[in-house]
């Protein structure tokens, strides 16, 4: 079975509730359109604080979290969840264009982040990663 077939199979399996926390409105809009075409439900937060509020209010199958955001960034979101001992309750994928070392990425995973994706990424790969992470 090819990777594409596998991916298609997964897509048919489940419609996900996805939270996107990213300050880049172009990306959030287009990503939402893409994911909705794939029958997922998306919620968007354009900064960390708003994202944190949404996380606390609603449960999501997977959360795409940008790291570099003005004011309240992705690190602050992770730190806040960590302080409340709820980081591991959420399936967070760090989705970043920042220059970040492998060590730093590993550290985030060690702390409780499920996975990471570095921008730019192939859109199908991103989709597979979302489905894989949600099904873990």
């Amino acid at each position: 079975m090819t990777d594409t077939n596998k991916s298609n199979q997964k897509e048919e399996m489940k419609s996900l509730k996805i939270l996107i926390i990213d300050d880049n409105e172009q990306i959030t809009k287009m990503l939402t359109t893409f994911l909705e075409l794939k029958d997922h439900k998306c919620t968007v937060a354009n900064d960390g604080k708003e994202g944190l509020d949404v996380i606390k209010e609603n449960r999501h199958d997977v959360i795409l979290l940008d790291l570099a955001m003005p004011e309240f960034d992705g690190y602050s979101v992770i730190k806040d969840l960590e302080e409340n001992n709820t980081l591991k309750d959420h399936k967070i994928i760090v989705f970043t264009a920042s220059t970040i070392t492998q060590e730093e990425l590993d550290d985030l995973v060690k702390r409780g982040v499920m996975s990471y994706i570095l921008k730019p990424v192939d859109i199908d790969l991103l989709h597979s990663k979302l489905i894989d992470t949600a099904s873990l």
Partner: protein
Amino acid sequence: MALTETVEEGMFQAENPIHELNRMLVKYDLTPNQAKVYLFLSKIGIKTASEISKALKIPRTETYHLLSTLQQKGIIFSVFGKPTKFNSTGLEESLGILLNNERNRISELEAGKDSLIKLWNIIPKYGEDDTESQDNKFQSLQGRNSILGKLEQMIKESKETILVLGTDADFKKFYFTEFTELLNKTKSELRILTDHQSDMPNIFESIDPNKVKKIDDKNREDFCFIIKDDSEVIFFISNNKVKEMLAVWTDSKAFVTTLKSLFSLMWKKSHHINETDAESLLGSEITYEHRLREIEQEKMILSYLKENFKLLGNGKDRR
């Protein structure tokens, strides 16, 4: 006589610095004519009411009235004799007395505040409660003191954020007031966007530099406003025809939200004043790299969407 008239003729000529003194004394709660009489006596010395009236060309009845008020204020005194003569206390002593009078007046007002509120509350409200009119109030404020009073009230009552946008020149009239002290004391989140030159004194120099950002010249707009929480804003109006400061206070949600968004946008684009040029440059290089990757990501999603919509479009055409 000749001396008095000659001196008097020169005293209140437009170019004489005594005019400036006269204007300044008005700020100490004297009327222009009270200040004129006081300054006349200070410089000329003991004179009768009639002599003052003639010299200053003020009607005699009004002169008596002015002298009586100045005596009550404690800055001139009468000398026994017939006719009664008048003299003034020294300027420094007089200013002290006038300041004290003002302090006492404020203390009395403060003391009366509670009784006034109690009395007010006793009187039943006759009009109907119009909750809608609670919103969208606009108040025009003229003059430093009325603006400062409102600003102080806003800063003291703030519970979440105080956002300040404006240049040092915009706020220069608040030097030597409690304005910056109150900003320093506020427990709300404080953010100030201002012009900043490290070699020049700045009204915000006593504020924690982490709370102050420098407006980039390219982002510079002629705005000056202060926002309290999500609820109130004072914005300044520059009007060359009016010498006094002019501002408008409002609790209009639409106004507050719009100005808050503008502030937030400018805040994002600006750098902290304690950031060195190198840090700032480095920061922008990182942002540049970062932005390139984001653009690449945008392109990738966009091309996927275009391809998909094209397919969808073709499908429709076929139908």
